[in-house]
C-alpha cells in the first residue's frame, strides 16, 4: 500500500490531484459523471465580485498538443456562487474546496475573499493574479512582484484561510513574484496559469479568438510549467500547487519531484472528462512502478 496523502497549507489531501480552476466549473458537470470525492479537492471557476459574461466568442482555439482559451473570467459573481453553487456542491462534494478568486482592483480581491472566507466549505483561497484574458486586472497584478505582494497582503488581512497566490508564467522571473508573495504572507503559490498565445485563421486571415490572444494550456506547456515549479521551489519555502499540461499520473510525479506539494489538472479535463479520476486511480500503481511508497517524501526530490 502506497501513501498518496499530502498536506497543503495545513489541510490534508487524500491525494494531490486537484482539477484546476476554469476546467471544472463549480463541480456540477463532473459530479454527473463520477464521484468527485475521489479527488484531493478541486479549484472552482475563477470568481469575481460582480457577475461577468466574459469575452465574445470564439473563445477557444486549438494547436498541436494543446488549446488556447480566452473565456475572460465568465462567472456568476461571488454572491451567486455563495447562494447557489456552494449549496449545490455540498450535496455532491464533502471535502474542502479551493475557491479561486479574481479581481480588477486590490479592494475587489479583498472584498470577494472576505465573502468566501465566511464559507465553511472553502478550504483554501486561490487568488488568481494571472488571468491573461482580461484587461485592467488579472495578469497585471501577477506581472510585478510589488503588486503581487500588495494583493497578497490585502487578502491575508481579511481571511484566516490559507491563501494560495496563482502566478502567471508570462513574466521574466516567476521566482521573484513567488518570493514577493511569500514575503507578503502567502501560504502557498500555484503555477502556472496559461501562456499567452494566438492563432490566425488562414481562410479569414484574422485571429481566430475574438480576444485576439488567449492562454495556452495542455500537454504542450508541461515542460515549461515543470521548469517554473522547479525554479520557484528553490526560491520559496511555502508549498506549491504545480500545474500546466498534466494529463497522467506520471506527470503528477514529475511535478512533485520538481517541488509541487499538490498538482493541478487543467485542460485534460476538457478533452477527457474522466481524466482527473483516472489520474487518481492510476497514481498508486505508477508510484509502485517507480518505487515510491510515500508521496510526501518525494516533494522536491529532483533538487
Amino acid at each position: 500500500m502506497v501513501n498518496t496523502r499530502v498536506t497543503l497549507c495545513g489541510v490534508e489531501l487524500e491525494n494531490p490531484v486537484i482539477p484546476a480552476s476554469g476546467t471544472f466549473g463549480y463541480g456540477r458537470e463532473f459530479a454527473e459523471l463520477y464521484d468527485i470525492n475521489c479527488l484531493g479537492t478541486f479549484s472552482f471557476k475563477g470568481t469575481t465580485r460582480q457577475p461577468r459574461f466574459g469575452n465574445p466568442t470564439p473563445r477557444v482555439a486549438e494547436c498541436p498538443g494543446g488549446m488556447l482559451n480566452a473565456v475572460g473570467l465568465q462567472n456568476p459573481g461571488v454572491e451567486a456562487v455563495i447562494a447557489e453553487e456552494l449549496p449545490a456542491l455540498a450535496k455532491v462534494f464533502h471535502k474542502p474546496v479551493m475557491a479561486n478568486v479574481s479581481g480588477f482592483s486590490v479592494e475587489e480581491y479583498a472584498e470577494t475573499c472576505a465573502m468566501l472566507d465566511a464559507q465553511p466549505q472553502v478550504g483554501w483561497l486561490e487568488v488568481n493574479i494571472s488571468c491573461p484574458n482580461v484587461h485592467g486586472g488579472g495578469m497585471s497584478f501577477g506581472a510585478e512582484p510589488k503588486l503581487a505582494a500588495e494583493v497578497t497582503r490585502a487578502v491575508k488581512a481579511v481571511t484566516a484561510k490559507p491563501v494560495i497566490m496563482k502566478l502567471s508564467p508570462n513574466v521574466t522571473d516567476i521566482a521573484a513574484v513567488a518570493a514577493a508573495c511569500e514575503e507578503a504572507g502567502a501560504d502557498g503559490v500555484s503555477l502556472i496559469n496559461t501562456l499567452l498565445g494566438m492563432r490566425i485563421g488562414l481562410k479569414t486571415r484574422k485571429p481566430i479568438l475574438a480576444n485576439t490572444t488567449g492562454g495556452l494550456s495542455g500537454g504542450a506547456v508541461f515542460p515549461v510549467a515543470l521548469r517554473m515549479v522547479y525554479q520557484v521551489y528553490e526560491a520559496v519555502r511555502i508549498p506549491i500547487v504545480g500545474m500546466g499540461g498534466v494529463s497522467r499520473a506520471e506527470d503528477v510525479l514529475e511535478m512533485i519531484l520538481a517541488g509541487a506539494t499538490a498538482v493541478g489538472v487543467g485542460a485534460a479535463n476538457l478533452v477527457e472528462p474522466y481524466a482527473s479520476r483516472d489520474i487518481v486511480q492510476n497514481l498508486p500503481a505508477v508510484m509502485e512502478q517507480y518505487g515510491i511508497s510515500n508521496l510526501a517524501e518525494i516533494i522536491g526530490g529532483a533538487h
Partner: protein
Amino acid sequence: MKQGRYTIIENSPLAQELWRLRLAGDTGAFTAPGQFLDIRLDGFFLRRPISVCDWDGEAVTVIYKVLGEGTRALTAYEPGKWLDVLTGLGNGYDTAESGNRPLVVGGGVGIPPLYRLTKQLIAKGKRPAVILGFNRAEEMFMSDEFRALGADVIVTTADGSCGIPGFVTDGVPAVGAYSYVFACGPTAMLRALDAVIESPAQYSFEERMGCGFGACMGCTCQTKNGHKRVCKDGPVFRREEIVW
C-alpha cells in the same frame, strides 16, 4: 453523456465535402433529436463536435462537412477502426408543442439533425413540412431521405439551380399554414427566418466549442434568460429567449 469506443461501420462521401459516418456502439445516451457527439481524433487536442442525424439501438449516424484539418483527418478513418466518442451531448429539440403541422427548416450542414426530428414528428402522427436550403444543386443531399419519411419537402437553392430560387425564407410562403418551426443552420439563416415566421420556434445554433459538455465556458452566448452554454444548455434555444 456517455464516453465510449465506437466502431466505424461506414465513412463515405455523400455530397461536396460532406461525409456520412456510422458508428456502432452504445446509443443509450441519446434522448432527443438535435443532440450531438464529440469525437477524439489522433493528433488533435480538442474533440470534434458533430450533430447527430439518426440512431437506433446499435449505431449512430452523423453527416459531417470537411471544414478544417480535423474533419479532413476524419475522412481517412476506415471502417473497422474505433473512435473515442462522447455521446448524448446537448439538449436537443423538444417536440411536445409542435402542433400537427410543424415546419422544419434546414440550411446546408444544419440539415442532418433535422432528419431524426422529422422522423420523430411523423412517428407521433404529425405532418411536417420541410424546407431544405442549399447554395446550388450539386451541394444537395438528403432531400430524398426526408421524402421517404413521408414529409412534404421544399428545396431552395441560392443560385436557383434547383427548386425554389433563393433562401429558405423564400420557401416559407409555399408551405401555407404551420403550427411550429424547428430550424438548424447558419446564424444568418436563422435570423432571416426568425424575421418572417409567425409561430413559436426552436433554433439550433453552432458555436466553436472547447469541451462540448459544459465545463469550459468556451461557447457561451447571451440569452434573455442570462448566459447559456451552447453545448450544454443548447444547442437548441427557444425563439423567445434568443438575443440576436
